[in-house]
């Protein structure tokens, strides 16, 4: 991989240069919380944050997305609808990049999803290493605290300057065009390494099992009383899945114009934690009880996705831990309970 260095003084012109060319989404701060949003200038951008409320997933799989447009009446016509406006997502943390890699696997698998794939191709990902992790994060346990893949550019704050890892030609081009940089030296890279290691020491949570052990740990404990114990407190609210960067399930519905001349079909985020997720029209509900839904979420993250897509479905961001009012959505606690009991 090639590495460049950009000074903190040269960063604003770089970002503003990008802004002159293409839509840029970045992390903003409000009331001590962080969120991804479109930025108009460098000044709105925050590059030192712990975690955003909602992952950048919303720019690749929008919460509500039109799939088709159709006209009604005598001669029905239907057309696919794909909104894939080019965009840079700036300041994505490694765990969220890992989650995007998993989404890529899901949506390119066997029947490639043009809506996602088009948008993904038109999205540039500029990552930033996380120096001050959220108290709920456990990325080191999941192997997601840093990443060497999945980005076009990756920034690491080494004090007065950033090391920029170049992950793609597109990234290199943008950097060349808009930024003043110099080649990174051995010393820069050593500092980058030190900064990353320093951040590792700041994580508060960890899983007592090795990441490779998790799928098997779950499999052995399908009937463990833990699931029922946690489910007894579950509100079936779906918050844990709404904030999760690897939750990709959706519902599909139609809507029509008020004058009934046409309409559109859209998908929207859905959640396997909601009661009706597996219910069929004749009334049969294949995950009727909360225990089976809660277990499904844990197994999907820690086992099923690995089997299907070759990647674990949890990247350790800890968003679910913060989002769950009942305090039962933590993968750390669940895995550790199982590990202790085994």
């Amino acid at each position, binding site marked *: 991989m090639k590495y460049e260095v950009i000074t903190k003084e040269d960063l604003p012109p770089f970002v503003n240069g990008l802004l002159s060319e293409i839509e840029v989404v970045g992390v903003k701060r409000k009331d001590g919380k962080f969120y991804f949003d479109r930025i108009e200038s460098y000044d709105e951008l925050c590059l030192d944050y712990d975690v955003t409320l909602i992952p950048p997933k919303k720019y690749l799989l929008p919460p509500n997305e039109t799939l088709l447009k159709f006209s009604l009446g005598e001669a029905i016509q239907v057309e696919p609808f794909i909104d894939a406006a080019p965009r840079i997502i700036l300041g994505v943390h490694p765990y969220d990049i890992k989650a995007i890699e998993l989404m890529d696997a899901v*949506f390119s698998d*066997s029947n*490639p999803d043009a809506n996602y794939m088009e948008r993904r191709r038109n999205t540039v990902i500029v990552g930033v290493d996380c120096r001050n992790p959220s108290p709920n994060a456990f990325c080191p346990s999941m192997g997601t605290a840093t990443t060497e893949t999945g980005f076009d550019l990756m920034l690491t704050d080494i004090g007065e300057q950033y090391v920029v890892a170049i992950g793609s030609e597109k990234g290199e081009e943008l950097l060349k065009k808009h930024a003043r940089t110099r080649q990174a030296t051995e010393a820069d890279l050593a500092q980058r390494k030190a900064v990353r290691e320093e951040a590792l020491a700041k994580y508060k949570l960890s899983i007592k099992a090795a990441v490779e052990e998790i799928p098997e740990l779950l499999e052995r404990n399908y009937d463990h009383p833990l699931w029922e114990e946690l489910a007894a407190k579950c509100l079936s609210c779906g918050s844990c899945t709404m904030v999760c960067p690897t939750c990709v399930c959706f519902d*599909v519905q139609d809507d029509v114009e008020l004058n009934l001349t046409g309409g559109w*079909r859209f998908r929207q985020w859905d959640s396997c934690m909601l009661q009706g997720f597996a219910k069929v029209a*004749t009334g049969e509900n*294949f995950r009727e009880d909360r225990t089976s839904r809660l277990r499904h979420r844990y197994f999907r993250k820690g086992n099923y996705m690995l089997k299907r897509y070759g990647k674990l479905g949890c990247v350790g961001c800890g968003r679910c831990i913060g989002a769950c009012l009942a305090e039962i959505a933590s993968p750390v606690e669940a895995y550790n309970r199982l590990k202790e009991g085994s």
Partner: protein
Amino acid sequence: MREKESIYLPKLAELVRTEGLTERERLFELKLRNGDELGHQPGQFVELSIFGVGEAPLSISSSPTKKGSFEVGVRAVGNVTNALHRLEKGATVGIRGPFGNGFPLDRLKGQDVLIVAGGIGLVPLRSLVNYIEDNRQDFGRVLLLFGCRTLQEQLFVGELDHWRASKDFEYYESVDRCEDPSWKGQVGVITTLFPQFTIAPEKTYAVIVGPPVMYRFVIAECKNKGIPDDQILLSLERRMKCGVGKCGHCQINNVYVCQEGPVFTYSELKNLEEAI
């Protein structure tokens, strides 16, 4: 893999004929507007759109040996299915698919086939029965068991008459309850038909489609007869919102029914905790 077009874009199809089957179920014959054949296998399904209402997964009820059009048999239960029931000849719907694996014809060929249909399970199985009838020499003995709750719920009554009389099939039927004194057939659940015949289990494949409650009991009867687990085939219904392995609704543990199914062998299912 680079996608060619939207996997969510339906082809337009014309409703060329509809026919009442029972009080709740109707048959719909459809033709793709572009003139293409659907190109399906027995046991596959389509996603049928009524634009402005939504989409529903429906088994293809006709055999691929019937060219030029295809059929679905539909119970009116909700938005899409009721809207479909209201459509008239000439109406336009959308079709995606065919999806799913279908019945494994390669494995069934040359073997004896025991077809067990409960209620509207006959809708998908009819595609297999009609296929076998059109390729009768490729199969061994074919036993056809059909059970439903009441006589009024029997579908495809014309075809039932034909199967009763046909030498191609050994036909058995039951109704759970019956007040009609002219009914001379079996009264009782479908499993009560099993003592009436013998089979050579090592070369018999059971193909079972019916309501979820039926599976456990019918599987037990098949095992009783000595049919190996990997020769017991079932088609499963799950909630489906995409049919192409993306929406996540059809999952049984780590299995996507729309992709790996809807037809499974019992040996594939018996270790899947959520399956039956």
